[in-house]
């Protein structure tokens, strides 16, 4: 996919355009909103200082990869795993259906980390499997396979929840 930011006014425009999906991706990795927020900020502040996007062929994929790297470095320095926060909003739900938002969030939380990241990158990051594969250092087939498993689990988890609520 070619770079998509050509009409955007620099780093600030990229932040507005991709901030939400990047934050969601960061939360799906570390499980903690404040750390996820810090990682996204860190990436963009560094880009502002260094103009690091000059050499990026695929701007969007580069941003997601940068956020992931920032979190992985941070996790290494902390040497501990943080559990996913249960009650922070991840999405602005359609029609203010907060029950559905909670349902989706819990279903995502129930997925294995690697599957959750693929789903977030493909659906809300709108990245192709090739881009997802590059970001996560896996093959495109693996990315597609993880996505299919994840989608099936997600649907099942959400249906079970909806049926239990009915």
């Amino acid at each position, binding site marked *: 996919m070619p770079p998509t930011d050509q009409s955007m006014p620099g780093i600030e425009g990229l932040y507005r355009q991709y901030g939400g*999906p*990047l*934050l*969601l991706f960061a939360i799906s990795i570390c499980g903690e909103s404040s750390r996820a927020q810090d990682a996204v*900020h860190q990436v963009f502040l560094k880009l502002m200082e260094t103009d690091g996007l000059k050499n990026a062929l695929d701007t969007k994929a580069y941003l997601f990869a940068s956020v992931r790297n920032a979190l992985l470095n941070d996790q290494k320095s902390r040497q501990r795993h943080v559990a996913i926060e249960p009650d922070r909003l991840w999405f602005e*739900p359609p029609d203010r259906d907060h029950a559905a938002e909670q349902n989706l969030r819990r279903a995502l939380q129930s997925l294995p980390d690697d599957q959750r990241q693929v789903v977030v990158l493909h659906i809300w990051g709108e990245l192709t499997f090739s881009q997802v594969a590059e970001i996560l250092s896996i093959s495109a087939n693996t990315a597609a396979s993880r996505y299919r498993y994840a*989608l099936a689990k997600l649907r099942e988890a959400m249906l079970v929840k909806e049926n239990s609520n009915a």
Partner: protein
Amino acid sequence: MPEPNDEQFEKYLKNFRPVDPEPLPVRTKKHAGGASSRSALAACAVACLAAVALVMIVLPRGPKPDNTQEPSAIPNNAQHTEISMPALTNLALDDHAAFDKFMTDEVQTQFPSMQSEQSALRVLAQE
């Protein structure tokens, strides 16, 4: 909810928009040109100060010049009126006629009179 196929389910999921992050904790590049705007403001302030200083020189508040050696055309009852700079500015903006009159009077009290035949300024002007 009927069991959707993958495509429908993806569309449903995309209806949920990820929450936006908080604004970046710095002023963005758009506002980063603050140095040049600060310079412009500083230059403007210096220009204003220079203008005020010039006005202060033209309208000194010190003792009046000694006009005793020169016959003055100013009536004896003409009083030199002290007025603050903000008041003078307001006068200039609000009442042009009064401002002109004040400035005329002020000049007559501050500079040697040109009315007298012996006035140095008059002599110089004739030369």
